[in-house]
């Protein structure tokens, strides 16, 4: 079971806020985050790692990136 957050088009720090919110609330062990800039990608990855989550996958898509993170 995984959850998807669409943070494309949102400015700083909203993608990180949404990611952290999902990490805190989510019952699922995996979360997918969609972002549209490299800045947001780096920020989301940094935030997830600071919460002790792992970056499972980063895929480049036409509209940006899909980042899959998982609980350790």
């Amino acid at each position, binding site marked *: 079971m995984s959850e998807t957050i669409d943070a494309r*088009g949102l400015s*700083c720090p909203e993608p990180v806020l949404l990611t952290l919110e999902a990490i805190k609330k989510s019952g699922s062990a995996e979360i997918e985050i969609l972002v549209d800039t490299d800045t947001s990608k*780096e920020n989301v990855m940094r935030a997830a790692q600071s919460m002790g989550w792992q970056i499972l996958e980063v895929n480049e898509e036409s509209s940006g990136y899909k980042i899959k993170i998982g609980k350790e």
Partner: protein
Amino acid sequence: MEGFKNFFATRWGIIFVGLVIGVLAPLLQKFGNPPNMGICVACMERDIAGALGLHRASVVQYLRPEIIAFVLGAFLSALAFKEYRPRGGSAPFIRFILGMFAMIGALVFLGCPWRTILRLAGGDGNAISGLLGLISGIWLGTRFLKAGYSLGKTQPAPSKMAGVAFPLLMFGLLVLLFIDPQPPDQARGMILFYSLKGPGSQHAPLAVSLSAALLIGILAQRSRFCTMGAFRDLILFKQGHLFSGVAAFFIAALATNLLLGQFNPGFAGQPIAHTMQLWNFLGMTLAGLAFSLSGGCPGRQLFLSGEGDADAAVFASGMIVGAAISHNFGLASSPAGIGPNGAIATIIGLVVCIIIGLTMRRR
């Protein structure tokens, strides 16, 4: 695990960028820029407004090449690293208003966050109340963000050309600066306005300003250097990534000032500064709140506009208009103190920004 392909996105990367900017800014001062104003995004945009005749404050008129080169450096860097992404449409007019009031607040204090740090690194004690104001404004912004504040999503632009508009405008200004330099001892070129005295008359040689600012534009685009985000992330996420860049910026600027003999500690008689601490504080509270609500410090907005972010370009344009308003209607401070309408404008700005913070919500 996916590592960071971008060195500048690492902790050491942003520290490196902070150190470089911290050395270059006092050097620009050494080469001729105004004291404690090696770089000041707000002051320099204000000087551009003056050079274009949007306001006619005779001491602050110069088409500052640093601003131009910040945008062009970020633009070239974004192209080179495939991060050029034309986009826009996230509440542009609200961003314009935020830009206007950010500038109005910054000119009550006399400096943007970059200059706040540089004033501190030059020994100007009045910058302490400015810095505290900045942090308070950003803190207020984080409360709104926590409560769901959002200006909504941007959309990809229909054409790749859309994001070129602002960099092209900057390039046009650069061409103007080359073909219309200041005639000796005159305050007017063919088109552009210049200053004969005051901060507008103090500037590093064009080639020095351009190359330093181009380098900063490139490095800041790569590293996402942001003086507002530094404090915001610390308050909101207890995350010190961007802060380490700003700390490095301060330490390098302090060390460079000490080496160059540009460190003069004190409160009274500091260059391009006043001692009305309440308004130093509140001016920067307003600026900090406006930067926080728009997602970036004034430098970051320029670097984003170089990446093709039209909303950031609208914010920067709002700042330039805000500078014109500040100087046309007596809102801007001077070394003598705040302008006749500076206090009321600051309060109106705070009220407007708080209303924006309260009403713009994620759906």
